[in-house]
């Protein structure tokens, strides 16, 4: 490398420590150098694959060893329809609704593929295990594994099973710097079509080691669930009183 090029790369490597933005990439004419073009495509490919990878409930059931599970689908028959029809992704397939075991459940966990199956394959079982371990006296329903599912599908599930609250663990919309981010949505006594996002509490970016850890997420979720049960509500009136999320 020339002396100038060395100085340049030193400048940008120090600046890049302050941001994940793709700065100081250099040029090939007006375009990106080959290496950076391919790096961008690799990140995009990871995000795309995360969206389109099939949901594998077996992976999650294996991670939950010992915990009963039940599998459902939304009313969206395939990925193409799912992406264009959020309304169908919020409703259970009517046949599956009948198979859900009703009971006096305090809470039900729903693992929903959302926009990244990869996120739920990698993180959901651990979050369920760690959270359930902190809820010893709770009557927890079998874990529902839901395909082509959006957050509000949990409302339908909770109502069908008679559960007092629902925790939906869902694969978040993948960005290029994070294709495996898991979100958790807690809703107390949801009613399909009536409950809105303002009635939910959300933890996002569960994605160790860079995002929220499993124990961190479980502490917060179990804390929120306990408070939700005491207060009889979730949403804007229920504040997270544990430590703030890491920067």
């Amino acid at each position, binding site marked *: 490398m020339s002396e100038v090029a060395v100085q340049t790369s030193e*400048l940008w490597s120090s600046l890049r420590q302050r941001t994940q933005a793709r700065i100081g990439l250099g*040029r090939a004419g007006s375009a990106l150098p080959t290496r950076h073009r391919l790096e961008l495509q690799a990140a995009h490919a990871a995000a795309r694959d995360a969206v389109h990878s099939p949901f594998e409930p077996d992976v999650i059931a294996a991670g939950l060893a010992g915990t009963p599970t039940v599998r459902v689908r939304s009313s969206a028959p395939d990925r193409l329809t799912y992406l*264009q029809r959020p309304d169908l992704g919020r409703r259970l397939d009517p046949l599956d609704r009948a198979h859900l075991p009703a009971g006096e459940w305090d809470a039900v966990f729903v693992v929903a593929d959302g926009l990244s199956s990869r996120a739920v394959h990698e993180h959901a079982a651990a979050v369920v295990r760690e959270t359930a371990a902190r809820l010893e006296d709770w009557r927890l329903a079998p874990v529902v594994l839901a395909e082509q599912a959006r957050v509000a599908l949990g409302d339908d599930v909770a109502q069908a099973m008679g559960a007092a609250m629902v925790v939906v663990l869902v694969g978040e919309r993948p960005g290029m710097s994070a294709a495996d981010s898991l979100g958790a949505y807690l809703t107390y006594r949801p009613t399909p079509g009536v409950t809105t996002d303002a009635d939910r509490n959300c933890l996002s970016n569960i994605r160790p080691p860079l995002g929220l850890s499993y124990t961190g997420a479980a502490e917060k979720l179990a804390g929120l669930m306990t408070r939700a049960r005491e207060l009889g509500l979730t949403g804007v009136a229920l504040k997270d009183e544990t430590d703030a999320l890491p920067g």
Partner: protein
Amino acid sequence: MSYTSVLGGRHHRFDTLARLLAAASPERSGDRLAGLAAASEQERVAARWALADVPLAEFLAEPLIPYETDDVTRLILDTHDTAAFAPVAGLTVGEFREWLLSPGADAGALAALAPGLTPEMVAAVSKLMGNADLVAVARKVRVVTAFRSTIGLPGRLATRLQPNHPTDDPAGVAAALLDGLLLGSGDAVIGINPATDSPKAVRDLLELLDGVIQRYAIPTQSCVLCHVTTSVDLMSRGAPVDLVFQSIAGTQTANASFGVTLGLLDDAYEAALALERGTVGHNVMYFETGQGSALSAGAHHGVDQQTVEARAYAVARRYDPLLVNTVVGFIGPEYLYDGRQILRAALEDHFCGKLLGLPMGLDICYTNHADADDDDIATMLTMLGVAGASFVICTPGGDDIMLNYQSASYHDALYLREVLGLRPAPEFESWLDSIGLLDEKGGIRETTGAAHPLTAIGKELAA
């Protein structure tokens, strides 16, 4: 009133003007989601046959959303300029298409016509136009605005430099700002989407940008894209606000979902004008729009996605904005499914905005769950460059780490200027030359970075 046509041996009937417009729209997932799309490809074309025969004047007589209940409808009808409308007052939508494509519809005629057109008229005619038609007509329209730089002149393409950071870290923002400036970007605006809408965070960013602009005497303007009420508050406290930003939509209820009323925008506009911070012009507003926002807010009133988007431009033009851009692929595939739908929407939005007299730019973008990639960005960029877009939004490497979506990059803007012979805004171009960033052909010189005086921006703030 109903509308009919016969196609393929079948009689097609559309009960209302809104139904007709929706059925005539090109296929897109948002109209399907709203239950407004044509039921078949033949029905879509049948709707276009019927739409071609509708007189333009009918859009004045038959509001899609009632005058009594919607202030955007009132704005459209109350400000309609009958004299400006006169040259096309006797035309049908189909005849209007042919007139727009004719040589007689030159830059002067189109500029004079703009106050006589309503969003519904331009949306309607766009549904009869092919992508090439949308380019050919939009290219003829010139809308020139100015603050510290002049936007929209022939042969020019401006860019928004977007140095976003997920925690608004000043050093991270400064690093991305330096990167963009060294690549010749930022003549439309240096605009940050802040991570929070807190007045303190917004003010810190405004002061950071104002400091850089002043220190290096950059002929551009800054904007921190916060809610209009935050800007009004900050202006009253003496914060360095150049442009007032707001996301807007095409119905009163959709605007209400953004927490915006026309009255609030009026107040913000007056306050920004009174600051007199512009040097070469006094266009002080910056608006963003995008197809799907009204549907997303449950506020579309049965009007198709593209027509309701065009109505947002009626809101924008009330305030003589410096910049308007559609964030075309941002909301996701439930509104625009793939690169093909996003491209079509980009061309429609640009065309409709320009015809209504707006300085239209674009955030040519997609989310990663849409069926699109960087080749779609290149296609859109090239067509919109040919169509004469005023500006495009650029992010480092085309990857926005704060909003988690993909947009055009600074490199993409260099490409577009190179292949189409486009230059930056004249004031900014002179500045680039003065700091040694312009090469002998008028392109952006590939700088070694480390040796350039601008690198002090990054070095000091990163220290």
